[in-house]
């Protein structure tokens, strides 16, 4: 495997060069700090920063206690389980001091000096100021302690050998807190600080190399998360309607925008968390991201000839009319109480990757039980693979004015199979 041999090579070169990064041992264990040790305003600020960093989502497994870890993260190198970051002394980080926590966030080491896997995106958290990290520390240390041991990581050699990560860090970890750009506005800088640092948007929205690091020159050009496609949010953004700051702010805070579509899949918990964050901060992030996307003209809507996909597109039209048009058509047959984002404008049908549309069509969009939110039912089982491919071909040609995606049936089967495996 290319990545493995690269890493092994690196490790050997590092070893023979005699350069070893000395592990830093942690401070004497601190007594677990209770609420009284922290200022209420600092805790509140830490809560907001933690929401931007989305700590809870990774550090909580489905059905598990908040921050107690155990979420399985699939990486190309194997499965990594998120850690218990509650203040439990034995199984969590209750014994960690403020500087232990800072070192984890900035340097990617635990309090015993062991390297942490960059699935924990310390390459982004290195940007966060000490003050902000300390506020997050105050918040984390005042959560309920939970006694919970997480499963051991399942990584193949040599990835399971933590000292290897020193080499990874040498190549890919840029240290240093974010430095504002004096030529830019305060709002832009605030946005940049949050996006580059805590928001760690690039961690999903950037393609990664064989070493699992973000590919710098394709930064924010589109990536992966949990079997979904994380759309490009740089100049390559496929959104047919250019974003405005208002729209992107709304999207990030409420999980949808009526000109662009709905957050779904891994983006759903991000939007949930960001709903707790002051609007000014989200606005700043939107301002920065819009600058990254650059000025765009609306996509020219030129019809695409279906060509050799014609019969597929035609049968897709019939499937759409009977299955989707009730909610997704704006004509007389639409159900009066349902409002959907005009399909032609939804970013996901314009993306180069069909997986997001497939996920949504197969699984639907469901809020958490008891929560209000858009409900789109899933159509897995209602449509055969063939019918699904025809439907998507029609949607691409008719609504996106783009050629159909290839290989839709196989990708649909992969998604279904993966879901079935994970549900067992």
């Amino acid at each position, binding site marked *: 495997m290319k990545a493995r041999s690269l890493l092994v090579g690196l490790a050997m070169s590092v070893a023979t060069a005699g350069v070893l990064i000395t592990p830093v041992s942690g401070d004497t264990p601190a007594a677990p700090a209770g609420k009284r040790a922290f200022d209420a305003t600092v805790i509140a600020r830490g809560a907001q920063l933690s929401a931007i960093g989305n700590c809870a989502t990774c550090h909580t497994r489905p059905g598990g206690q908040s921050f107690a870890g155990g979420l399985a993260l699939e990486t190309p190198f194997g499965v990594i389980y998120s850690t218990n970051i509650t203040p439990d002394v034995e199984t969590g980080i209750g014994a960690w001091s403020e500087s232990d926590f800072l070192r984890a966030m900035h340097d990617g080491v635990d309090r015993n000096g062991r390297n942490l896997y960059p699935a924990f995106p310390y390459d982004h958290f290195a940007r966060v100021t000490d003050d902000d990290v300390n506020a997050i520390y105050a918040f984390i240390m005042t959560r*309920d302690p939970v006694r919970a041991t997480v499963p051991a990581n399942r990584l193949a050699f040599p990835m399971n050998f933590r000292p290897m990560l020193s080499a990874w860090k040498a190549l890919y970890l840029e240290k240093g807190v974010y430095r504002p750009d004096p030529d830019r506005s305060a709002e832009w800088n605030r946005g940049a600080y949050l996006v580059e640092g805590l928001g760690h948007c690039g961690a999903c929205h950037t393609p990664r190399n064989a070493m699992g690091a973000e590919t710098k020159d394709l930064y924010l050009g589109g990536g992966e998360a949990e079997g979904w496609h994380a759309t490009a949010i740089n100049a390559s953004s496929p959104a047919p309607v250019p974003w405005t700051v208002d729209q992107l702010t709304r999207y990030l805070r409420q999980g949808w925008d009526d000109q662009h579509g709905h957050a779904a899949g891994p983006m759903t918990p991000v939007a949930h968390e960001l709903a707790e964050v002051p609007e000014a901060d989200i606005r700043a992030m939107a301002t920065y991201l819009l600058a990254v996307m650059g000025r765009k003209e609306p996509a020219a809507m030129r019809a695409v000839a279906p060509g050799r996909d014609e019969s597929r597109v035609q049968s897709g039209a019939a499937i759409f009319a009977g299955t989707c048009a009730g909610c997704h058509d704006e004509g*007389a047959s639409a159900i*009066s109480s349902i409002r959907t984002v005009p399909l032609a404008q939804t970013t996901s049908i314009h993306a180069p990757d069909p997986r997001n549309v497939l996920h949504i069509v197969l699984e639907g969009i469901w809020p958490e039980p008891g929560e209000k939110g858009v409900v789109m039912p899933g159509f897995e089982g209602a449509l055969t693979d063939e019918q699904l491919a025809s439907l998507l071909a029609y949607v691409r040609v008719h609504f996106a004015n783009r050629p159909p995606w290839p290989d839709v049936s196989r990708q649909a089967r992969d998604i279904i199979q993966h879901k079935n495996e994970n549900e067992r």
Partner: protein
Amino acid sequence: MNSHDAERHALSRREFLAASGALIIGFSLASSSLRAQNSPGPKLPGSLDRNPMLDSWIRIDADGSISVFTGKAELGQGVKTALIQIAAEQLYVPPQRIRLITADTRQTPDEGYTAGSNSMKDSGTAIMNAAAQVREILIARASERLGVAADRLKAQDGAVVTDDGRRLGFGELVGDSLTRVRADGQSKLKDPVTYSVVGKAMPRVDIPAKVTGGAAYVQDLRLPGMVHARVVRPPSYVARLRELQTAAVEKMPGVLKVVRDGSFVAVVAAHEFEAIQAMRALAAAARWDERATLPDQADLYSYLQRLPADNIIDLDRQASPSPGVRSLEASYRRPYQMHGAIGPSCAVGLFKDGALTVWTHSQGVYPLRQSIAEMLHLPDDRVQCIHVEGSGCYGHNAADDAGADAALIARAFPDRPVRVQWMREQEHLWEPYGPAMLTTAKAALDSAGNIVAWDYEVTSNTHSMRPGGAGNLLPAWHLASPFAPAAPKPIPLPEGGGDRNAIPYYRLPSARVVHRFVPAMPVRVSALRALGAYMNVFSIESFIDELAQAAGADPVDFRLRHLDDPRARDVVSLVASRFGWSSYTRAPGRGRGFAFARYKNLGAYIALALEVDVNRERGSVRVMRAVAAVDSGQAVNPDGIRNQIEGGIIQSSSWTLHEAVEFDRIAIRSADWSRYPMLRFPEIPESIDVHVIDRPGQPFLGTGEAAQGPTAAAIGNAIAYATGARIRELPFDRTRIKGAIGL
């Protein structure tokens, strides 16, 4: 004995006489089978008082087949099965031999509405006594025919038998014995010790068809020549139709007629989907004038508080003042909440030869018939309403309105049955909701920690706008010559509406309870299961816990200290014991909560303990386990009781954790389940245990609405225990919980 005790004594004595008079005066009737026609006498048991002729209730044909008639309706609460059990028991026949006919203006007694958890008390008691009397009449008949003394005869398996094996079937005996016979409430009822059917968990008679696709609902009715209709409802309460071009829709496939009367618009088509598509086309073509008439939802409670109200003093008892050393005050709030039947309302109407038949799942076929007759300017006897089961309605939902729709459309499209089915959004937006309510409780404790003074105020709209009158039928409001809704009226105690269960069942030396009845109804409201009891029991049982805490007392002990009724104490103690209340240990994020109530202070007794899990980061709450004890008097079908209580706990959990109708200044916006979420499978508890305390021979107390209020309070109490946060506004949604817990 202080006045509070006397009051409760009086209540129990009255109910005792009303229901159990027949138990103590039991003598068999050896001779004449005719009764005096003109004896005023004491009140007859249950609904016999209003419908005293025996053959209104029971008919036995010459072939021995037995029909029992009830004015009550099966709503899914198992009443059909329970009434069959009662009749079968008193007639000494296997239940399978009983054919039960429910609510039908052509053939059953008028028992008003199937509501208020009164079916067992009203209809069960009537049928029990009527069946006993019929049995005695038949035995008397057999005695004459066989020359054997009545006390040597017995009823068995649909016949009267002698001890030497002679047998005369009911069918051979009946002749016209039952006609023109008046009930007398004097018959000897079976000794409960000998019950073989009542008190047993007989399987429900309607379930097998429901799990195998049998026809079971009004939605399944298929009459010859039937056509399908849909109504186009206005987009908001006061919207008026300004413009509608119907020509294009009239030409759509299958469309038979477009009906228009003022702002009432409907379409009739041969096939159901054709009707739906035509409805959507009509809706898209219609132009309405709308106005903003709704309050600002963010300001709802102060708005309600400011509306003019009639002060109704429900209780004002001032004992000699006892020094209170500690006083507490708390206010509670409850939003509009919806019935939310899974199956939107439906009805079939047939207008033929100047007469109308409506098949409907209305809870009251007689009042509906009278209202529809008024709406169509017909005499009552030209309209028949026949109850056919719908999906659970949980009170006054849109069933009557759908019946009225069917009537109007059938009149416009006569001679063929017309089936009207409401859409989901129509049911969500137009059904009458449970009213928003505010309550304030104040109490004083003495130095021993007992309550010495109590003051409670509840502000609420009416909880009943049932037809009674065309003006309470939704479609009648939209006609070119509309009917106006009747002026709302409070339901008097002891039943109560907004003040149902506003008077606590506890011993309170001084107590004042005021019902601020608000006539103005910006949002359409009516009876939702338990009526005001949901909010009043929530408020009172939350406040009792707050008082217990102030008194430094355990919540169960505190309640027992203030409860004298032994049956109340029994349910409380049983639950505490089965839940493991005194051995409960604290675990992170977990809390226990308790509640007690006697529905309407004269219905079923229920105590409930439950455990919740609170996730403070997400603000989510899940009920993990619940233990309940219920005393419904003589249990007719204990499994039916358990089913209703389990269901009530889950339904109330949903109301309490998630539900509030949303609206803006112009219209209701909770159009479907995405905007008004309900509890789903991942949230259900791990266990619910319901213990039924059977009281053989005691009056039936009903069951269906007992659990709603206590569940809400127990959840609130459990959250307070787990987090220290006392939440007084329903529902306990995530935002409210996170806000209450803080960081």
